[in-house]
């Protein structure tokens, strides 16, 4: 197991190398530069543009920039953000809690609601509960999160005024201050995720419930609860965990829409803004850290397989 884990971690290296190299090359192939973003919609003379290019190190050939850049990246040092006047790592660490809070809370809500509904739908297949579960999960996946976000905002913030409409406060401002501003974004983000998890749990559970060993368990006279939770769910969890890992990874990257709607200064919003501004160090750093998190999630999911199904042996 330990050897497998180490091997998977080592496999990260080429993946990360390819990811950061691709983003380095792609950002520089795209027309425009941080200078055009800095000068904006104004006339600036060529000498000033040259001076800015020199100062930002953009006057040198791309391969030279890459050779200077690569060794720093190995140590996770992406240098200074071109727009924030701060190290990229600090900027990312500042934003990461926002995105993590949002996606993690959404994941908890997704698991807490999605899996039970999926199980019950499978157990009562063809019944009223299953019918409503299907309708709700389809609806959840069909509703655009940004639209849902605005609707939730209009009802609960503008209309009922139960929670603030937008913005983020760190937890140091108090738990409620932090939590109340995440309630609507978490709801908007988790609805579509719940739909996906309900459908996956339901179909997997239906498949597992039809297997011989579940039939054998029932024949042995085990209680239905034991059959479902101990025998069926545990086997179904392999697929469910895969989906949950996927949902979390997608949530990290895809939360940008929700962050934009609710004015949350998260990592997705940072990367999008950095792309627009051509803030190369921040863009590269942001994608690097998101890649790391996605790979870590993949690893956790792989390791979870062994827990849920001891027959799986890693070599």
């Amino acid at each position, binding site marked *: 197991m330990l050897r497998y884990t180490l091997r998977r971690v080592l496999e990260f290296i080429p993946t990360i190398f390819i990811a950061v190299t691709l983003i380095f090359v792609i950002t520089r192939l*795209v*027309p*425009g*530069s*941080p200078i*055009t*973003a*800095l*000068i*904006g*919609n*104004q*006339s*600036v*003379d*060529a000498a*000033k543009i040259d001076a*800015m290019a020199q*100062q930002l190190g953009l006057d040198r050939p791309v391969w030279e920039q890459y050779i200077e850049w690569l060794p720093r990246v190995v140590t996770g040092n992406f240098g200074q953000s071109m*727009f*924030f*006047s*701060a190290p990229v790592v600090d*900027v990312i660490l*500042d934003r990461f809690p926002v995105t993590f809070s949002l996606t993690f809370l959404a994941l908890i809500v997704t698991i807490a609601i999605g899996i039970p509904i999926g199980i019950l739908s499978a157990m009562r297949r063809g019944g009223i509960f299953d019918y409503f579960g299907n309708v709700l999960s389809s609806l959840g996946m069909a509703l655009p999160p940004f639209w849902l976000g*605005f609707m939730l*905002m*209009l009802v609960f*913030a*503008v209309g009922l*005024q139960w929670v*603030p*409409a*937008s*913005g*983020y406060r760190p937890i140091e401002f108090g738990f409620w201050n932090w939590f109340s501003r995440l309630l609507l974004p978490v709801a908007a983000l988790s609805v579509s995720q719940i739909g996906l998890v309900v459908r996956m749990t339901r179909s997997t559970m239906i498949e597992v419930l039809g297997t011989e060993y579940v039939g054998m368990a029932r024949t042995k006279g085990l209680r239905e609860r034991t059959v479902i939770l101990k025998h069926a769910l545990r086997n179904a969890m392999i697929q469910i965990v895969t989906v949950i890992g996927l949902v979390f990874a997608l949530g990290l990257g895809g939360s940008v829409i929700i962050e*934009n*709607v*609710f*004015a949350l*200064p998260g990592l997705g*919003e*940072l990367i999008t*803004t950095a*792309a*627009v*501004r*051509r803030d190369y160090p921040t863009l590269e750093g942001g994608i690097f850290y998101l890649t790391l998190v996605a790979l870590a999630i993949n690893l956790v999911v792989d390791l979870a397989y062994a827990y849920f199904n001891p027959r799986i042996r890693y070599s």
Partner: protein
Amino acid sequence: MVRRRTLLSGVVGGIAATSLNLHFGGLVQTALAAGEPIKGGTLNVGLHIPLTTLDWQSTVSHPLPHVMGHVFEGLFGFGKDFNAELELAESVEAATDGKTWTIKLRPGVKFHNGEMLKSSDVKASLERWRTVGPKGSGLNTLGSIDLPDDLTVVMNFDEPMGRFLLLLLGSDENKAVIMPQAIAEASTTPGQLTEVVGTGPYRFVEYKEDQYARLARFDDYVARDDGPNYQTGKKVGNLDEIIFWIVPEATTRVAGLESGEYDIITEVPDGEATRLEGNPDLDAIKNGPGVLLYMMFNHKVGPTSQLNIRKAIQSLIDPSEIAAAAVSNPDFALTNPSIYAPESAYNTDAGSELYTPGDIDKAKEYLAEANYNGEPVTIQVIATNSLQNRLAVAIVEQAKRAGLNLEILSYDLATWVANRRDPEKLNIYTSGGYWVDPSLWNAEFNGTFPSPEVGFISDATEKIFNELSAETEFEKRKALGEDLQREFYSQVAMVNLGYVYRLVAKRSNVMDPDGNLALGNLTLNGVYLDA
């Protein structure tokens, strides 16, 4: 993209003292307060985009002036009539040859760090602005700055400078603001100030990147003793604190205003005006001067370098249709033949006989003279800029009527800006700004905008600007402005697509006794929160 190019007037100190009448139709413009201003409270403002730097001297980016206009001051500032008025300067005097300008500073002015304002601070700040400021190159004929005493600055130019005060206002986007000498000299890198220290009625507290900027009242602020006058005059900081929250999504800003989270929001979609006016707790404020939407060409390479092609485009464009496409609420659009804002004293119809909007037959004649045979002409837009996209679609439809094959190319902002400078990639783009003085058109007519490789220039415009730079008399400047407008139309330097106004909204308990929220940049001097 319509960027806030707040190119305002400011003819030499009071020479063009023509007051502006902002004719804004039926919308509420200001909330004139009846009672005594109340001190205290926190004002929450929802801003539309993040700040890219805190260094106002080195950038033209919005919305920095909305924030830093309360922290920093210049020698001069814009008054209500968009003339340059005294701010930190107590007086200004020009020698008869227009080359030497003597500025007396107001005594007793304190910086936020407790230091007293001295002439050496002004010199260091202006020197820095010349180096780092996009508009600083306007002082390229400045020979030297002498400091006879702590409160006197003498600026010696190599040539007569008729628009000197105007230059220091940096089109209100890149103002030559004054900071302590030590900070100006230590902050050599553009975009990076060692400290944010000004003399304004509010001091800078903190900026949390892309989240909020926080200002607090500067209790030692020494106000002028003349009356409030938009960005200058007697400024009063009534609020304990102002927090500018960054809320890029317009719907979220509006929802935040309705729920009471924000007290003022900027860049509100004009379609929201009616809904906001229907809410007794909110006020919709039409903000001017009018922004001229224009079409800019590649004048050096490609089809638009031919005058007849440009004339064809100028003829086929119908601004009334364009205006209808640009706004949701017709109250926010206006067609006007002038290249000077409708509120400007320079607004004129000179040369408009050359401007025959919507004349398809004329356009076809010009295309035939250009031997146009249907090759595509491109108009580039920023993908996320809905206004530009709406304009482009309307323009393409109008072009079809004359047989002009116009194609839309959509880019992200940075690519759009880069391509705009590139003679091989640019044909046409649209943008906007407001100009209330002829000399402010200099960049657009001197061949450098948006880059020397594509910009417009002519002998006639060079001559006009040379005369404008030395001319101080309003009537003569106005005549030169009319000549410039004739040149604009006869050479089709750009195409006038009509004017639009912006919308600011506030909660009704936000009192704006001086009516500043209807003018240009967000100015919160005198603003207070009613109980």
